[in-house]
């Protein structure tokens, strides 16, 4: 499982770098109408455009690494699906929120943080419901097969 986790972390880091910059570009365009690769405030924070790009790319990669690597929570034998989902959600939010604030993707106010957390929680809940229904149906089939023995 360790090697799989490491592979996921690496893949997540690469995807995170790409997706983070694409999202920043889209949200920059939607909010200002201009093509912005990063928030202008980030340039001031990091001292240069290169610094801003580097910070955004690497930190996006980190979020991706945590998100993908966190899939391994669901492969642990003992914790149920709910605990695995909570661990995955918790590690993503603990990484994403501070990074999103640092990169000026969201404001450091309860409303922005609450909305982002709520959106992620709803997404996780929907995925959890789908997976729960799927496993429940599979277990029902197992019980049906038991009656044929």
């Amino acid at each position, binding site marked *: 499982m360790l090697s799989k986790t490491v592979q996921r972390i690496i893949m997540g880091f690469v995807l995170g770098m790409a997706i983070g910059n694409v999202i920043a570009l889209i949200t920059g365009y939607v909010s200002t109408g201009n093509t912005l690769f990063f928030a202008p405030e980030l340039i001031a924070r990091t001292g240069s455009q290169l610094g801003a790009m580097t910070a955004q790319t690497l930190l996006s990669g980190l979020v991706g690494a945590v998100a993908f690597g966190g899939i391994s929570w669901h*492969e642990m*034998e*003992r914790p*149920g*699906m*709910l*605990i*695995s*989902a909570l661990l995955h959600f918790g590690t993503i939010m603990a990484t994403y929120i501070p990074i999103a604030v640092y990169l000026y993707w969201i404001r450091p106010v309860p409303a922005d943080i609450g909305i982002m957390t709520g959106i992620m929680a709803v997404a996780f809940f929907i995925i*959890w419901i789908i*997976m*729960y229904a799927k*496993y*429940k149906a*599979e*277990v029902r*089939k*197992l*019980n049906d*097969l*038991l009656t*044929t*023995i």
Partner: protein
Amino acid sequence: MKKINVRFSRENDKSDIDVIFCASEEDRQVSSLMDRVRDPLAGHITVHDHNGSSVTLNDMTVISISTENKKLKVITEDGEYELRKTLRDVEKNLDPARFLKISRYEIINLGKVRKFDFSVSGSFRIIMQNGLETWASRRLIPDIRKRLEGKE
């Protein structure tokens, strides 16, 4: 696992006993049954009771085998026994059509399962016929299904 039907056909001129297995394919279940007929001692394990005496059991009566304090605990319909082997060694001699290793620490007899359950917390629970409850990874569900369908 496929259902087993046993029939007797009288042939007056027969001096030997012919046992013919009819199935759609010679899968694990069929091979295991053939081994048992060839060797009546196949499908038996020797365990120790709480006095340390050896007891030979038909593995069909075994409900589960699990590791406990560096020994194996064998739970059967009649009681609990000990086995001084590793789980890996025991697994080699058990009927693969019937016994499944559900974790690093436990093997269960699928024929002794009363019910499978998937709880709200998302845990996959196995309830045996004697009331014993155990847990397994969700990833085992497809393997269990194949075993019960006789496809593995």
